């Protein structure tokens, strides 16, 4: 038995087994990995395209809402200017007195 173990038959067989299983696995896996990766990339692209479409729709909705709010803001600003003009009677200090008179307490026409 010592002679068998001392010979190169076992080391050689071990090398052949190791190299064989390694090479076979690499050859099998490389093609398979590329195919799987291609499928995964396609799925990922489709998923991202769906997300992109949803984001585009959301962006358009937000832009519409933003435009409505801007118009509303413009109207309110215009309205507040008109109302303030009526309250203040063109008195620059009316902002401090609430439109009831100037800073010295003198009534404003």
């Amino acid at each position, binding site marked *: *038995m*010592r002679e*068998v*173990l*001392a010979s190169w038959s*076992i*080391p050689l067989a*071990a*090398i052949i*087994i*190791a*190299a064989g*299983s*390694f*090479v*076979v*696995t*690499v050859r*099998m*896996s*490389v093609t*398979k*990995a*590329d195919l*799987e*990766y291609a499928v*995964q*990339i396609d799925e*990922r692209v489709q998923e991202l395209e769906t997300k992109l479409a949803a984001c585009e729709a959301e962006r358009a909705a937000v832009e519409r809402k933003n435009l409505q709010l801007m118009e509303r803001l413009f109207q309110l600003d215009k309205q507040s200017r008109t109302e303030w003009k009526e309250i203040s009677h063109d008195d620059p200090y009316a902002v401090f007195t609430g439109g009831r008179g100037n800073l010295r307490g003198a009534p404003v026409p």
Partner: protein
Amino acid sequence: MKLLRAAIDALLSHGHVVIWIAAALHFIWAPLLLLDDKAAMITSIHGFVSFVEIFGLHLVPGIHALILVVASFLSLEALRRPPSIKNWLLVVPQQVIVMTTAAGGWVAIMTGHYADGYPAPRAFIAADQIIFTLVGLAHTLAVMFGGSRRKDA
């Protein structure tokens, strides 16, 4: 050079440790594969799974875990028994498994992405997966010379 020679000598003298570590790793992988099939997408395990597919056994439920456990058990049994051709054959299944896991790492390096499709720089994958190649080489050396060294010891 002396350091390298001493390292190789130490590896050959204590080759059974590598076999034990590989067996422990496979014993741990087996229940994880049973718990969740997605564990098979781990790059190193995927190499082994691809190898099993060659024989068409991958369709049998739990076959990967079973093979891992049986191979680990056989290799540990080989460590327990005195060196002989018959006992040496007990380590062969685990030898094949460690080389297929090493191959899984190299496939990831060559294709530039992990088995689950995560792309990464090749150097990144190599740094991550090279341990399985080292274990495979150490296991091969242990299988080549471990028996005679143990007998000599």
